[in-house]
């Protein structure tokens, strides 16, 4: 794991995965803890824990933008709350992915980068279906983020979803963590893989 200096200065080279985690109560989430632990041990992954860094929501825009610029892959990890990201991740998108930076005239900072979403849900896979009680698929719920990637000229990676995260037993979570680690590794350039 690399830790970004909090100075707002860009990392030396554009490479690797910026893994941005947003969970307001990570201490209560076995699934997200397990996933984060598996991924952040990889070299080439920069880990940012939004709720830990900005407990008062006072996001440092320059630092965050520098982190985005310095990485090829932007990975967002979060529990699906009301079919969307937790509040601070939305705030982070609102404040950091600015017009003129991420999109619009002169907003080319993220062009060509890849956006990867890793998301946990409470309900099982069957609920995310036209006939399930959530009535829509995960792809459909993630459309806002997919369009965000598109508007910013980014490549949309197939999302990584763990369904029924709260009810999985430790063995099942461990299997998901291994799968997650492999998926993140596949996003890293070959030479930086472990």
């Amino acid at each position, binding site marked *: 794991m690399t830790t970004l200096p909090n100075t707002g200065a860009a990392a030396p080279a554009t490479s690797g995965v910026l893994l941005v985690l947003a969970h307001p*109560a990570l201490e209560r989430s076995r699934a997200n803890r397990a996933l984060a632990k598996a991924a952040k041990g990889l070299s080439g992954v920069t880990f940012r824990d939004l*709720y*830990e860094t900005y*407990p008062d929501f006072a996001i440092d825009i320059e630092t965050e933008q520098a982190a985005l610029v310095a990485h090829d892959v932007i990975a967002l990890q979060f529990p699906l709350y009301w079919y969307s990201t937790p509040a601070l991740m939305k705030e982070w998108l609102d404040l950091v992915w600015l017009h003129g930076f991420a999109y619009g005239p002169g907003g080319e900072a993220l062009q060509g980068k890849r956006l990867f979403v890793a998301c946990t849900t*409470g*309900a*099982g896979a*069957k609920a995310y279906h036209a006939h399930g009680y959530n009535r829509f698929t995960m792809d459909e719920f993630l459309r806002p983020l997919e369009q965000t990637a598109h508007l910013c000229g980014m490549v949309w990676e197939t999302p990584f979803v763990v369904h029924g995260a*709260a009810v999985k037993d430790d063995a099942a979570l461990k299997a998901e963590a291994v799968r997650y680690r492999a998926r993140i590794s596949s996003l890293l350039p070959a030479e930086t893989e472990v």
Partner: protein
Amino acid sequence: MDSFLIQTVFYLGAAVISVPIAKRLGLGSVLGYLIAGVLNGPHALSLVGAEADVMKFAEFGVVILLFLIGLEVQPSTLWEMRRTIFGFGGAQVVVTALAVAGVAVVLGLPWQTALAVGLVLAMSSTAIVLQTLDEKGLRQGPVGRAAFGVLLLQDLAVIPLFALLPLLATVAPTTAGEAGSHGASLMTHLPIWAQIASVFAAVAAVVGGGRYLVRPLFRFIAESRLREIFTAAALLIVVGVASLMQMVGLSPALGAFLAGVVLAESEFRRELETDIEPFRGLLLGLFFITVGAGVDLPLIVHKPLTLLGLVLGLMTLKFLVMLGLARLFGAPMRGAAAVATALAQGGEFAFVLLTFTVGAGVIGAPLAALLTAAVAVSMALTPLAMMLYERIAAALDAAVTDVTPDTGAFDEGEPDIIIAGFGRFGQITGRLLTANGFRSTVLDSDIEQIDLLRRFGRRVHYGDATRMDLLRAAGIERARMLIVALDDREKTVELVETARKAFPDLVILARAWDRRHAYDLLANGADAVERETFESALSLGTTALQKLGFRAHRAHRAASFFRRHDRRSFEELRPMWGQEEAYILASRDAAKTMERLLAADLSRLRPGDAGGAWDTASLEQELRERAQTEGAE
């Protein structure tokens, strides 16, 4: 000694009675003093004489007035005003002198005497003009500025006049050197180059002393924290400069003005202003009284028409010249008329110059007496003339309503916020506000603190902020907010209380020691208070929670909840305000308050609780049940 006391009683008594009456009648304080003087004078009730001693003492009021004005004029402002001072002011003296001289020649005076009369009468009265403009609220605007520029040049012009007037002598001088208080008493025996050199040396001494000596002196005094010595030092400076100027033959008032300008950028400016202000008021009052007492009533009675013609002629002529010049220099009609009306009288310099010219054989004694009376009457008429001007202006306004109010301020920009106390507490608040673009004026009595802040270009003034006059000088009347961040419990309450009484609409925020103090401040009119240790203690508690393993956001929320809970109990425990309740609160045992707080903590805040955030137990239960039924299908 007895006669001195009795005289003082008469002077003060006259002022105390006639000035409030004059003010009540809308005549202004200047006229009140003048009337008091006339009534007390040798020709009416004859309670006091127009003694030269009193006059000299009273003239010191003018000196102080100019010192205070100097304090308000930054050197840069003076430089910006150079056109007003030398152009407008110079033109006024020359043209008025020639016009008056012309009329005098027509009336049959020899040209030399006529020119002398013209020069003497061209002077206006600094004291009366500025005091009157001040009362009308006109001194800070363009009118006040123009008038001030002219007055300043007249003060300057007096110096060469003492040299020039003797050249106009038509008869042999009787006592050439007798030049009143403005004569070059010590320097006349010196050769001319030495006189000039000493003038320059004196000016350099004032500027240099003001720059390099006064500040360390005041710092030294400030550290002793003796207010009366500070006042004494301020007076010492004014008196010292005045006597130095007199010694080299310059006008003491001009010297005081110069000293004021030199000190205008010093951090002690507000304190100086506040300390000297009462002297100015009283001494100027005394000055006006002596002018009133000097009005030669028998002369008025014997030659009423001559005198009336003289006064009206003089004022009309000066008014017209001034009006024309002001228009020529681009002033709007209304402003030009105001300046011309304000400056239409003869000045106190005329008294001195007339005495001097009689001695120098330029003007005959009977004529001088007549002119002295005319000047005194014209001074007395000035407040009335200003009232007349206002009436006419108001009548015109009623017809055409397009008044543009005078907003141009002489002073630096007005502060949004006044911060009293800039120690550990005030500076954090102040920095936050400044960083967000608000202008603040800081009052502090820690000299080292001030020094440091001033090096960073902050607007800081030395002084005890609990003094209402100092707050006024700092601009509290126009400020939006007062922040009391003093390091003293009693003074904080005192300041909040007096500020609230004086300014019911001002927003007052205050630093409180503890709960009791906070309640006290709110009861005395503070809009909001902050217990000085509360937020920092809470912040340290948050860090402690994190070090004990809480995630940052959880610790943050825990602190937020605690803050809200504490604020609520703060409000609940705040007693109903009234004398009795305040008394009960004051005597209440602090431990009892603590007990109630702890009980409230227990009943409202459960351990580890941050409002049940993201507690998914029930959801998980539902999902488990769902998974089981789905699995069974």
